[in-house]
């Protein structure tokens, strides 16, 4: 099967930029032009529903002020004093109009030159279609560093724009010993696409509790997100995510423990209905000894939908005494729904403890009967069981996540 080419006209319509991202744009556009839209022969994309990818490569990317009016119609939870919120509209440079709180600063030019693109490179995802799409289309950059004295939590909200394809590029540097609670929220819109490239560097002894709420909500909303994280020694990173309501979503967390001896926790949940397709492709690589990973990926597929999980863990020779556990648990709620799950462990080091497992099941009949036998009606019993199933992932989100009331949605939407 031959790749479909991307229209030159669309590529030419992408907004140009100066500065740090100029080179990236050239690189990305060149790659897209030669590579085209992903197709079945691309191993990492072979399960994708290719019809759903068109919007990323064809919807207009120029945004005007009218677009923004319609976009910010959503109700976002009230701001509180302990949480700094940044709403990114891709119309303007995201750093223009935010007052940064004490302890968060913009990166200076030198720091940007030094850091941007480096993690993407070390994660070996330079020639990746998701990354190239973002490089080709991002014209603004939000690059922040979190200092040791920062005490609040940070919330970054990125809404899609109806009928448009948007892209955002973010870089976060969590300095040595700093701690951050970060909540990211992606919101879809009617017939829209969004793509993100987020790079995060955790210096030694830095701690990041990262929650990602990704809700498509409207018809024909699509999202591609690449999250490249580099962890230095003794840093700890916990990532909790939910993806729901997208017609198509692809989520690619790539985490490198650059010196080992760090701790990574990943808990992901994807919930699909109707004909949606949501995929998680994760990669965790240990570049030094004594690294720890605890990964749980859960999926719930109902109606005609499709969930995909591809979980790669790389433990090279130098990563002795790595302890990594990966578990993929899946609920298949309809005969027509589909779940593909694939662990990929590449272990070269010989003194390691790595486990993996995958289960696919239906809601347990005995659990359901137990609840029914106590007088709880079928609908309520199913809700309780689903909520229980989600709990392992959801209960560990940063506290402010609760204000987004997504749990009810995750339950009500699933039949």
């Amino acid at each position, binding site marked *: 099967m031959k790749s479909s080419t991307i229209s030159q006209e669309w590529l030419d319509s992408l907004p140009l930029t100066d500065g740090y991202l100029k080179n990236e744009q050239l690189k990305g556009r060149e790659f897209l032009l030669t590579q085209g839209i992903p197709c079945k022969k691309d191993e990492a994309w072979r399960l994708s529903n290719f019809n759903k990818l068109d919007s990323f490569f064809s919807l207009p990317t120029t945004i005007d002020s009218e677009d923004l009016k319609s976009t910010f119609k959503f109700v976002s939870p009230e701001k509180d004093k302990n949480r700094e919120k940044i709403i990114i509209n891709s119309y303007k440079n995201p750093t223009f109009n935010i007052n940064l709180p004490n302890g968060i600063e913009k990166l200076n030019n030198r720091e940007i030159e030094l850091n941007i693109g480096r993690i993407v490179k070390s994660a070996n995802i330079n020639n990746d279609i998701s990354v190239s799409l973002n490089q080709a289309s991002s014209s603004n950059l939000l690059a922040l560093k979190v200092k040791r004295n920062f005490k609040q939590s940070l919330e970054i909200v990125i809404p899609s724009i109806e009928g448009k394809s948007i892209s955002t590029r973010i870089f976060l540097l969590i300095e040595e010993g700093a701690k951050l609670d970060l909540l990211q929220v992606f919101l879809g819109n009617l017939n829209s696409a969004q793509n993100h490239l987020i790079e995060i560097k955790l210096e030694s002894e830095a701690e990041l509790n990262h929650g990602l709420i990704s809700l498509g909500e409207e018809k024909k909303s699509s999202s591609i997100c690449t999250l490249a994280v580099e962890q230095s020694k003794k840093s700890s990173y916990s990532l909790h995510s939910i993806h729901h309501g997208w017609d198509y979503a692809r989520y690619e967390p790539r985490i490198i423990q650059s010196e080992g001896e760090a701790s990574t926790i990943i808990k992901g949940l994807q919930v699909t209905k109707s004909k949606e397709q949501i995929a998680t492709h994760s990669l965790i690589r240990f570049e030094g000894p004594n690294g720890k990973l605890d990964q749980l990926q859960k999926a719930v597929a109902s109606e005609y939908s499709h969930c995909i999980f591809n979980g790669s863990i790389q433990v090279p020779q130098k990563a002795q005494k790595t302890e990594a556990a990966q578990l993929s648990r899946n609920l298949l709620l309809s005969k027509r729904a589909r779940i593909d799950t694939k662990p990929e462990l590449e272990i070269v080091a010989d003194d390691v403890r790595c486990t993996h497992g995958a289960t696919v099941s239906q809601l347990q009949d005995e659990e359901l009967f137990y609840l029914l*036998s*106590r*007088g*709880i009606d079928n609908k309520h019993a199913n809700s*309780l069981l689903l909520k229980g199933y989600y*709990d392992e992932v959801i209960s560990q989100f940063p506290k402010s996540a609760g204000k987004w009331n997504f749990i009810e949605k995750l339950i009500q939407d699933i039949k």
Partner: protein
Amino acid sequence: MISSNSEIILSIEGLHASVEDQEILHGVNLLVREGEIHAIMGRNGSGKSTLSKVIAGHPSYKVLSGSIQFNGTNILDLAPEERARIGIFLGFQYPVEIPGVSNLEFLRVATNSRRKQLLKTELDTFEFEDLVKERLKIVEMDAAFLERSVNEGFSGGEKKRNEILQMALLEPVISILDETDSGLDIDALRIVASGINRLSQPNSATILITHYQRLLNEITPDFVHIMADGKIIKTGNKELAIDLEKSGYDFIDKNIKDKEMAK
């Protein structure tokens, strides 16, 4: 005091039932009146647990013929949740663990479904906490169990106490307790038994399904039934349980043989 004038709560006649196309119950007859405690004993595989699941309406079990009436109404067409709401309670032999579902929330939702049926006002979280804390005393359970997931990581004894706690909250008309004594040490058995005794009411009834007589030392049954091969083959009083304990289930085989000879 029980008298033959007491109202009939449960009436089972000629009940045949199967699971996975295999007939397990071959004609069970049982009559339970208000205020009565019945014990059903029998070997593994004699159909005791099947009978309890059929009464509670487990969807895997199919009633082939016969009837089950509760307070004069046929319940075979009722869904399990409807049977629970009108006051039928099944204490599980193996209470199910449900990770992620808070025990407290589960108990509250269940209690409110029953209260709604009884035309009582539903309890909000605060009111319910008061009620549940009071009922916890009946089974000498620590309030910490409320914060955990339903039965998750509970020991055998804790699971059974959680069952009796549910019984205390739901205030059923008939409680069918399936091997509530199995896996309990002596202290736990005493706590569970005393809970069951305290919850017995003149207008409710209890069916204890058990292998051993030791539970019956703590709870005195009015009737003891012995089940074999999907039927109740003998009914007596507490003495029957003592005889059974003495001579073992072999006497059932003898009993069956004698009956066949008589034919």
